[in-house]
């Protein structure tokens, strides 16, 4: 966890993946960073390095970032072989320099997967996750005024579990950490978060079938139950949601084969 502060400045070397564009050859370039305030995040350190590069007239390092408070899922650095860096349960933007030793060489790469092509430097295109969401990660309801609170009763345990799944920010760390580049933890979180709620029931079967099949079509790999995804997840989404996904997918497959009109909802 990101906790505590340090008053000592440190010096590190950033070994950063530089790649001019999609499909272009890339390589690591070292950027020494001296006298770094150890309470800045690694994104802020990249800002500092980029300021220096810009002043020198060099091309700054491209990296994805937005909210910088761990809730948007935009930042996506592979730091020393682990998505989002050495700490558990934080995104790259909440990885502070005090997590590293003085004199460390920090290797920073983009999230890599065939369905996440590199756009430039440390930025990979994760719109494949949007395709999966569009396939079924929603409920079909009339929009309008917010419904009255508690008009649909939800058991407390289900609400809590659904909330745990809904914590997924869709950053792609699960894919980046998985040696098979499986998106199954992301899909499991989205399927479970809606599948646990009463509002998610009418499209439950069609949702899980469409989202899993879309992830497969996009070229993500399969789960080998190693738990690397959950270990890398900045929201610590439990691996148990994958079990729930498998159960839902298999049940939906059997139901759609043997029960007429079982899988209504989304067009496949």
């Amino acid at each position, binding site marked *: 966890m990101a906790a505590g502060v340090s008053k000592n400045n440190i010096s590190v070397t950033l*070994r950063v*993946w530089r790649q001019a564009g999609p499909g272009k050859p*890339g390589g*690591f370039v070292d950027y020494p960073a001296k006298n770094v305030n150890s309470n800045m995040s690694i994104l802020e350190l990249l800002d500092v390095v980029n300021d220096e590069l810009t002043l020198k007239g060099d091309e700054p390092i491209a990296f994805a970032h937005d909210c910088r408070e761990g809730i948007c899922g935009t930042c996506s650095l*592979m730091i*020393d*072989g*682990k998505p989002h860096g050495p700490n558990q349960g934080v995104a790259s933007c909440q990885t502070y320099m005090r997590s590293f030793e003085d004199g460390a060489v920090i*290797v920073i*790469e983009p999230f*890599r*997967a*065939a*369905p996440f092509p*590199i756009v430039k430097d440390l930025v990979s295109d994760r719109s494949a996750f949007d395709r999966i969401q569009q396939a079924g990660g929603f409920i079909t309801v009339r929009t309008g005024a917010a419904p009255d609170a508690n008009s649909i009763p939800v058991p407390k345990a289900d609400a809590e579990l659904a909330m745990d799944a809904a914590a997924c920010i869709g950053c792609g760390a699960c894919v980046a*950490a998985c*040696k*098979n*580049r*499986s998106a*199954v933890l992301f899909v499991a979180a989205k399927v479970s978060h809606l599948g646990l709620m009463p509002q998610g029931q009418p499209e439950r079967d069609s949702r899980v*079938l469409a989202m*899993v*099949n879309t*992830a*497969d079509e996009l*070229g*993500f*790999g*399969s*789960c*080998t*139950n*190693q*738990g*690397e995804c959950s*270990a*890398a997840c900045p929201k610590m989404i*439990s691996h*148990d949601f*994958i*079990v*729930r*996904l*498998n*159960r*839902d*997918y*298999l*049940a939906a*497959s*059997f139901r*759609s*084969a*043997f029960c007429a009109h079982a899988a209504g909802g989304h067009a*496949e």
Partner: protein
Amino acid sequence: MSLIGNLFCSTVGRKFLMAVSGLILVGFVIGHLVGNLQIFSHPDKINGYAQFLHSLGPLLWVTRIGLLIAAVIHIWAAIALTRTNAQARGTQHYGVNRWIRAPFASRYMRLTGFVVLAFLAYHLAQFTLGYASSSTFKGHLPEYTMASDFHIFGFPAVEKGHAVDDVYSMVFYGFQNPVISFFYILAVGLLTIHLLHGFQSVFHSFGWYSASWAPALRAVTIIFCIGFFFGNASMPAAILSGWLKPAQGTNVAAQPRTALNQAP
């Protein structure tokens, strides 16, 4: 997509098929171990049991073909998923590769699977088909005469005085060879590591796993794997070390392996 399409074409479906076929194969190796442990008893037991299995005729073949289909599906799913996963990784690899918390056994499933497959081929050639070590193959040894009736689950299966294949001696001759025994123990050890991850993985792929009984499943898996390894390893270990002496009335008691090798 249809049910068959979902099971055979999707990643989740293929993992389900891998789990189902794996579970069938686990069931087989448990039954196989229990049957084999009769080597520690009177030769009537294992020889009578082998005769009983052969007397099943068509039922034996249904089982064999069923197991073959399970093995083919298991291997096919492994190859298909491995290829999908390799494509998903893409061509550009990470500069730093590390594991975060993947269990040891899970990292070597392909390696352990390959060695077990190679062992399985040799094991069938030696004890089922007689292509390897053919001089001590059951079909080439003088027949064994049953000293008493053999019952299975209380039902009479093989009568006293019946001449049957001497499986007992075949196993003894085989395991008296240190190379075969060590390869056997190595393969069983790697299969145990395979099952350490595979047995638990079945419950994930079926969607049956739950955090509330995960510790119990872990304990059952570990106890099963320890029992499986020592049960299997006990046979070559006991025979090779000479702790288990051949019983009278068998070929191996009348003609030890050393004498067999010197025979013209």
